[in-house]
């Protein structure tokens, strides 16, 4: 059910989705989901995408300043549906800010962020509507400590998608089963291991049936022996066709799961390309330096 083919979102819910519907068969799919008819099993994979709408995320000349500090400088990047893009770079390079711009947690100083062609900075854009389609997983998990695992995964479905409690919990059980935590539904996050918490956080995002998942150093806060279980969930997701932007220091994961690796340095994309190129034969000297540092650890 992680497949992007069952992109169970609500199609934007505005007049705009109606327009898109004509040109994009996926919209009909969305419409069906909005009416709560979604089937949680994998749908057929032979969906047709027109090139421009298949770009899920489109960043254009993105600049972000904090005061005088230039954190992102003229970043252009687009992520196609089903693509897994790994963003690598040293600490402070602007990776988190880049990811947070994608779901509107940070507002770019100039330039634009488009999700399915919809400009986040346009006055008509409903950011909450966009965020339903963009799942995010944080380095510190950010689970809701006052809710059980089940409550964590169900709450946004109920408050945002207006699903009934029963329906939301049913979906929650399914996603939790997929991340291997079906038997932990009644626990509070505080008693879970870091790896389990992060898998709950992934399930929480997936329950909204997003079109794209953003991972901001999802394994960096974990003890080394717990990194594997989280990466393996992420690998499954990637294999099932989820569109993903993954900020990571796990070069093994990037090499295996990424379609494209983007090296960010000083707020600028220095190099991007398939993992084999960026990771094994980097053109840029900065990339070489960075990789030497990371891999020697």
């Amino acid at each position, binding site marked *: 059910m992680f497949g992007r083919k069952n992109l169970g979102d609500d199609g934007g819910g505005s007049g705009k989705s109606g327009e898109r519907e004509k040109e994009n068969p996926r919209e009909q799919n969305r419409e069906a989901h909005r009416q709560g008819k979604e089937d949680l099993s994998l749908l057929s994979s032979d969906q047709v995408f027109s090139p421009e709408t298949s770009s899920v995320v489109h960043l254009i000349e993105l600049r972000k300043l904090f005061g005088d500090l230039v954190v992102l400088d003229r970043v252009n990047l687009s992520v196609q549906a089903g693509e897994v893009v790994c963003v690598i770079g040293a600490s402070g390079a602007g990776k988190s800010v880049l990811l947070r711009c994608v779901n509107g947690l940070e507002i770019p100083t100039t330039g634009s962020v488009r999700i399915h062609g919809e400009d986040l900075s346009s006055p008509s854009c409903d950011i*909450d509507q966009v965020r339903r389609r963009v799942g995010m997983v944080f380095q510190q998990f950010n689970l*809701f400590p006052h809710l059980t695992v089940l409550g964590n995964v169900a*709450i946004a479905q109920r408050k945002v998608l207006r699903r009934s409690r029963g329906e939301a919990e049913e979906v929650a059980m399914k996603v939790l089963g997929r991340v291997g935590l079906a038997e932990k539904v009644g626990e509070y996050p505080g008693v879970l291991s870091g790896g389990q918490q992060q898998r709950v956080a992934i399930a929480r995002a997936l329950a909204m049936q997003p079109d794209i998942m953003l991972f901001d150093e999802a394994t960096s806060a974990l003890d080394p022996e717990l990194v594997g279980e989280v990466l393996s969930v992420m690998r499954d997701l990637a294999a099932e066709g989820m569109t993903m932007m993954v900020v990571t220091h796990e070069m093994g994961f990037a090499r295996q799961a990424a379609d494209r690796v983007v090296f960010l340095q000083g707020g600028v994309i220095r190099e991007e390309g398939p993992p084999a190129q960026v990771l094994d034969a980097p053109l840029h000297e900065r990339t070489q330096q960075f990789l030497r540092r990371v891999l020697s650890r």
Partner: protein
Amino acid sequence: MHPPSDTRRGRSKGHAEGRTAWSRVFSSADLPPRQRRARRRHFLVYLVTVLFCVWWIRSADWETLRDAFFEPEIFREQFPEVLTQAARNTLWFTLLGFSGGLTLGLFLALMRFSDMRLYRWAASVFVEVVRGLPALLTIFLVGYGIPLAFDVRIPGIYGPGAFSLAIVSSAYIAETIRAGIEAVPKGQMEAARSLGMPRGVSMTFIVLPQAFRIVIPPLTNELVLLLKDTSLLYALGTTDQTRELIKFGRDEMTEKFNVTPLIVVGLVYLVITLPLTRVAAWLERRARLSRE
């Protein structure tokens, strides 16, 4: 992530150390020299203290004290009115004032997180002004000023008193709740927002439940402070119907020309406040443990 500390007055810590130190004084033989010297020093300090207390107690005029402060006859005469009337009124004023203060305080705290500057500004001006004024003055201003200014009468026999107490406590409660909201990690709001939950929904279902858990102990302390502030309501004038504990005690004291009624009133206060502060301390300890 620290819980907000008491926003009003400092509070003394428990003194459980004394007892344990006492029992250790007599078994210091197997201790290292430095600790043994410390024990001996403690012993001397205690000895001097005890001698001083004995002298002080012996030098007091117990006869006069007992006549003025604890006249058994007068003590008995305070009951049952001190409970059925005075304590009852005090509790009603406290409960009504606290409910009002909690509602208004929550409202003010949320205003301080509004994205509209005017609301933020208005809320902080209100909070700062009320906290900067003595409670007695605020009670005067609200209890007399508002009916005069707007030509309204605050209804109910408890109405004026409870309303002015609500205004006073709302400012402190707003600060407490604000601190509680700020103590909830920023990531909670971000996670909620990233799931598409609007700001208000995220606040209501994610941030506030956690904030309230953090502020329950300081709010309990706030309740105790409010309970004691009911004694200021004499400023609004009282009838026999609305006499609270302090007014009751003072009236009785004047009538009987004896301090015993005040002792009774003090004991009634303690019977109410001590369990509350114990509960607050327990909640605080539990909250601290659950965070670790």
